[in-house]
């Protein structure tokens, strides 16, 4: 049974790390209606910032400041936020699919920069030996992972709490107003451009946090970790879980990651060995099928957006 427990801890760490990024996307898309198709790029910024700030120093590569883990986390959020400001200023005047194409392009650009700017990122070889903070706190791998999970759970809870405060505050209602009708919001004296940018940057910071946690947990970063498919995964998590619902975002991360990885486990159990080489294709079909079914039966996600009516309205 210890194996099952050990695996579940490992699984939950990755699921919740993605979950934090999904929460960021939820703020952007779910509440503000910003179609950010560049999630992988912001994960990458956070991941590399973590690696550069906390990693060991190497000749011929910038960074390796061996700073404490917490500084790495804050730095990663800062770097992703800064990236968000720059990219947001350039792209946020675009709407809908235009924004999607622009952010997608930027994510690919970021990945290519990671691949080519060897001095900063180590290029294709990546950066090795990034410290996992739990290795100093415990010696048994199971205990290390349990501590890491506790930390990720705490961070997820903190992020969730913060986002709930934000979206339930008047500012959150403005986000939704902009999502539904920007001109109407503007006519009420709100500044949609600034609010859209703020929401975008906050979301990007959370993606950076997710990337940083992933890299610290794995202990290695390479451009290979931030392929465009990650963006698709994060989006799927949000849509399956329930857009514009923070609990839905977390649930979606866990469910989709379980489908994505559990399908491999199930297939390896039921497929006879001689067909194992085809299991990859079967797994892809299974993942697709589950996603399509979930959208057919729960089009608004597992936990969709709660309908809000003003507290002061008499029903």
């Amino acid at each position: 049974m210890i194996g099952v427990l050990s695996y579940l801890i490992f699984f939950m760490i990755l699921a919740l790390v993605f979950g934090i990024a999904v929460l960021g996307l939820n703020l952007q898309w779910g509440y503000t209606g910003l179609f950010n198709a560049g999630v992988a790029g912001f994960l990458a910024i956070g991941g590399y910032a973590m690696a550069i700030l906390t990693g060991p120093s190497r000749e011929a590569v910038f960074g390796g400041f061996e700073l404490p883990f917490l500084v790495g986390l804050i730095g990663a959020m800062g770097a992703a936020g800064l990236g968000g400001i720059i990219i947001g200023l350039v792209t946020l005047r675009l709407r809908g699919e235009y924004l999607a194409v622009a952010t997608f392009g930027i994510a690919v650009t970021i990945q290519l920069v990671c691949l080519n700017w060897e001095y900063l990122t180590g290029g294709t070889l990546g950066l090795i030996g990034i410290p996992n903070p739990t290795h100093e706190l415990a010696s048994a791998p199971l205990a290390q992972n349990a501590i890491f999970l506790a930390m990720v759970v705490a961070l997820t809870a903190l992020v969730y709490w913060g986002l709930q405060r934000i979206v339930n505050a008047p500012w959150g209602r403005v986000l939704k107003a902009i999502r539904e009708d920007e001109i109407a919001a503007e006519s009420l004296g709100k500044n949609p451009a600034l609010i859209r940018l703020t929401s975008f940057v906050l979301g990007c910071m959370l993606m950076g946090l997710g990337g940083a946690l992933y890299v610290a947990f794995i202990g290695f970063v390479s451009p290979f970790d931030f392929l465009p498919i990650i963006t698709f995964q994060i989006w799927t998590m949000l849509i399956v879980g329930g857009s514009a619902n923070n609990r839905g975002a977390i649930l979606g991360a866990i469910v989709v990651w379980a489908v994505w990885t559990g399908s491999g486990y199930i297939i390896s159990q039921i497929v006879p060995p001689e067909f194992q080489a085809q299991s990859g294709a079967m797994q892809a079909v299974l993942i697709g099928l589950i996603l399509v079914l979930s959208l057919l039966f729960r089009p608004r996600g597992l936990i969709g957006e709660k309908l809000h009516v003003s507290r002061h309205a008499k029903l």
Partner: protein
Amino acid sequence: MRRLGKYVALGGLVAFLASMGNVMAQECPIKLGAILPVSGPMGQVGERISNTGAFAVEVFNEAGGVKNCPVEYTLRDTQGQSAVGVDAAKSLVDLEGVKALIGAVSSGVSLPVLTSVAVPSKVVQVSCCSSSESFTALAQEGKTKGYWFRTYATNRSQAAMGALLTTEKGFKNTAVIYVNTDFGVGLAKRYVEDIKKLGGNITSMIAYNESQQSYRAEVTKALEGNPDSVFLVAFPVDGATITREWLSLGGTDNLIVNNSLRSDDYFKAVGHQYLQNLVGYDSAQPRLPSVTTFNELFQAKFDGPPNGPGLHSVFDAVTVVLLAMEAADELTGDAIRDQIRNVTADGGIEVYPGAEGIKRAKALLAEGKQIRYVGATGALQFDANGDVQAPKMTWKLNGTENKETGYYTTEQVADLIKRLDK
């Protein structure tokens, strides 16, 4: 409908957990986990590699398995993604209880698996195909704790051979054009270090990104400084584009190319007549009966020759791990790790692939004798970092014919590297 959905989901979860429980209770068969990309961009390559790995297990089982226990080959797909590969490896180790891991193909997946699963869980990981130098660096820092091995001969010897060829031909000023992947970057950097030690000079180092329409900018830059030769690390399609542009812009036809360009597609795309001064090196198939044995076994099983990346090396990866399990007192990661070195160590009685060879190896081990596995890639000898070397050959084009010009044994290659690393 909604309620039904909940029950179905709950039932599924219960069945899932129950099936996990079953798996945990088993002792026999012994499980060997494989994490390979059988879908995604590397799917085609990965599938053949996986089939060959499964075949190696089949051969071992024909000889009676490990410790009289059949071996079960359990494959999980990485989809070419690091996070998916890491999860697959962890699930193989924790849920399936595999005793060792084979894989992955891309270094970008193998390395996360190594640092986050294999080393903490104390499970041996043997890759057939990952070429990145990061593994060697990690091993030198002591972070692999010896659990990492690869049966793929690393870039190290390729760089050394390239440098040797260049200087033996008497070239003094060489431009380097290389593909911008972990493979290309590692190889090119080593080459530059080596060539300086052998008395050559580098005029420029130009990286190129794959699948572009034209490489005029890169080629123009590489032409600066009037190189008398060019070292090209590329794959056939892009390599042909680069070579054509290089020659048409007046570059020298003194080409030294990596083994990835030893391909008819490349020669035809450029034109044989322009490549008569081209020289190259390649991993030589060692001239050993064990290699022929493997080729024949493979031919009989799959009805075709073992042409393709990683096939020889995955067969050896699996066989070495299983031999180490047979030799180990108990199936712990530490014991398997130490025995991998034992069953490949210099001075043991040589044993070969195939059911008969494995039977003989097992008999020798039972008598307490030292064995040395000589397999599909020849005699494997792992250095302290888990890397192996392979024999090399040099070649050139003679008209349209691809002609071998020299052969270097594993020992000669090792000597050359020792000389360069001093």
